[in-house]
């Protein structure tokens, strides 16, 4: 039995991680100090200005030492069909993970890793709710990673029948071309967020515009101001789009989904290559998400809710299966992966006509005071806020049209909309709880809502069937009961 150490580069990576966490305090120290350093030791302010620098140097040294210590004390080995990990300088922490509890090994290659041909391996088990992997091998060579894979395979391989070895080959299910990535970036919600940020930055430059000289000629100001705003908006949009494209490429470059041995394998990333595996039997639910813009072009994203195992370090356990796929071509790959699923929503139960008002009624609770306040304080222009009622009514009507659910044998499909249309598909045996919800007002009209929750991450993932006929909700609850 031999014990293994991590690659020395781990020390550098640990150190970089620690520094990254300390970055904000460091920046605060520097800014608070106003950058007024003096390196002239005869100056009386010399010591005073050196204090923050010394603090920073101490922090850097500390993180370097702790990184080295972490690497030095970390060992892993294989024994009794377990992966065993030990680390810690004064307090020796040991963790034994039986192979059959290990769900998947997820790989990540950062920039440091790629220079030295290393990978980071996260060992995922079912039981971790915190979003952290059960064990993390910061940096090991590919060969070492293969050793772990083989050690696990030795045990997990069930004895083959005499029919002969069936070598499972990976089937490619879906991949993204650069063109797909461009469309993904263009239609993503994040464009708006980035745009707001960019406009905030661009608007800083308006300080340099010599308003005083312009004020002299108001006419010109109007023309110029109008032009300026147009130019600002166009530049802002362009920059936002470019940033969005950049982020998308960094995250999703070379995105591939394949299936091997009843396991999903997803690889992606430009600077940081990631590879995760999810056993198909751990998938709790799938979600098809169409934001309004994508729905217009018949595009959708597909998300997998899985129990345990995601991209290590990411907060939730949702995994993007297809970042972007046209609805027309969606059924084939999904059917390949989940042959049991019925993806047809033709005969779904819709929300009854009398339930329509409930979709926007709730919004008036915050809308009425808001409109009242705006109208009062910014009279008369505040009255324009009355126009808010129109989009609220429209969205509510849209949500009403979308709301439906369908029960087919052991599977339920719920479709609902907040702004994006979400189709939530789950099997009965995966549903943790079902809940019927009814307010006093709904009761008067024999209307109720229902919520189902599946396991995913710490809080679970839920879907709601809003404002359905009470009888239909009853049917849903009965279906779940038996």
């Amino acid at each position, binding site marked *: 039995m031999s014990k293994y150490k991590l690659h020395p580069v781990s020390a550098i990576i640990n150190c970089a991680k620690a520094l990254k966490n300390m970055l904000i305090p460091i920046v605060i120290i520097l800014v608070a100090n106003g950058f007024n350093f003096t390196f002239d030791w005869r100056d009386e302010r010399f010591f005073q200005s050196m204090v923050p620098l010394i603090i920073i140097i101490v922090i850097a040294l500390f993180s370097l030492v702790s990184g080295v210590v972490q690497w030095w004390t970390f060992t892993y080995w294989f024994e009794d069909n377990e992966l065993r990990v030990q680390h810690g300088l004064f307090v020796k922490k040991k963790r034994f993970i039986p192979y059959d509890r290990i769900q998947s090994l997820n790989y990540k290659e950062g920039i440091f890793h790629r220079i030295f041909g290393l990978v980071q391996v996260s060992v995922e088990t*079912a039981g971790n709710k915190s979003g952290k992997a059960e064990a993390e091998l910061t940096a090991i060579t590919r060969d070492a990673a293969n050793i772990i894979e083989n050690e696990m395979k030795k045990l997990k391989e069930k004895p083959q029948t005499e029919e002969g070895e069936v070598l499972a080959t990976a089937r490619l299910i879906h991949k993204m071309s650069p063109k797909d990535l461009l469309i993904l970036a263009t239609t993503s919600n994040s464009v708006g967020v980035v745009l707001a940020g960019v406009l905030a930055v661009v608007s800083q430059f308006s300080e340099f515009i010599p308003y005083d000289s312009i004020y002299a000629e108001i006419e010109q100001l109007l023309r110029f101001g109008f032009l300026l705003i147009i130019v600002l908006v166009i530049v802002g949009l362009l920059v936002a789009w470019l940033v969005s494209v950049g982020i998308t490429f960094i995250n999703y470059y070379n995105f591939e989904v394949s299936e091997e041995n009843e396991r999903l394998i997803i690889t992606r990333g430009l600077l940081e290559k990631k590879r995760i595996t999810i056993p198909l039997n751990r998938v709790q639910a799938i979600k098809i998400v169409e934001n309004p813009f994508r729905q217009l072009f018949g595009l959708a994203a597909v998300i997998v809710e899985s129990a345990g195992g995601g991209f290590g370090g990411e907060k939730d356990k949702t995994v993007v299966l297809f970042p972007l796929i046209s609805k027309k071509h969606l059924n084939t790959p999904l059917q390949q992966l989940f042959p049991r699923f019925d993806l047809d929503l033709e005969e779904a139960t819709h929300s009854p006509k009398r339930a329509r008002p409930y979709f926007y009624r709730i919004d008036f609770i915050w809308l009425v005071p808001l409109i009242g306040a705006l109208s009062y304080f910014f009279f008369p222009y505040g009255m324009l806020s009355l126009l808010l009622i129109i989009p609220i009514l429209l969205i509510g009507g849209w949500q009403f049209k979308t709301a439906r659910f369908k029960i087919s044998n052991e599977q339920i499909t719920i479709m609902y909309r907040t702004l994006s249309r979400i189709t939530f598909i789950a099997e009965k045996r995966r549903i943790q709880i079902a809940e019927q919800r009814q307010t006093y007002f709904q009761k008067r009209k024999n209307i109720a809502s229902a919520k189902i929750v*599946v396991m995913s991450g710490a809080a*679970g993932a839920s879907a709601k069937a809003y404002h359905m006929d009470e009888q239909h909700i009853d049917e849903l609850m009965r279906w779940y009961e038996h």
Partner: protein
Amino acid sequence: MRQEPKYQIPKKGLTVWRLYGVLETLVAIIIAGGVSFATYSFDWPKYIYFIAAAIVLVIALLEIWVFPNVRWRIWRYEVREQEIEIQSGLFIVKRTLIPMVRVQHVDTGQGPILKKYDLANISISSAATTHVIPMLITADADELRAKISELARVAEEDV
């Protein structure tokens, strides 16, 4: 409509909820007192007194009288062979079904006030959620906990 769950929360639970309401009202009175004192010291407008008093009154009425009554009337539970059903809520009446196969563990909890009244809360956790049946007589709560964990053990299944 499906049958409502069978069992209600014991009457003592209502008393404890009222007691909680009294405590909340006390906190509100202290805050209102502070505001009134500030109003007096800094010569703020007089109507602040009336607003503070009105808020305290409303809180007292709701927390001591209305909410506990409504809560107590709505809250029901039933433990069956295959599932647990809990009905709860104040504005939204929720009826939650937790199949025994999904129960991960059951806890009983008891703070100082509950201890005095010999009551306990039971919380039932599935892999994704936690649900509480509040204010049960301690003996009942322990029995129920034992029953649930026994039934849940019969139905073992991985997620």
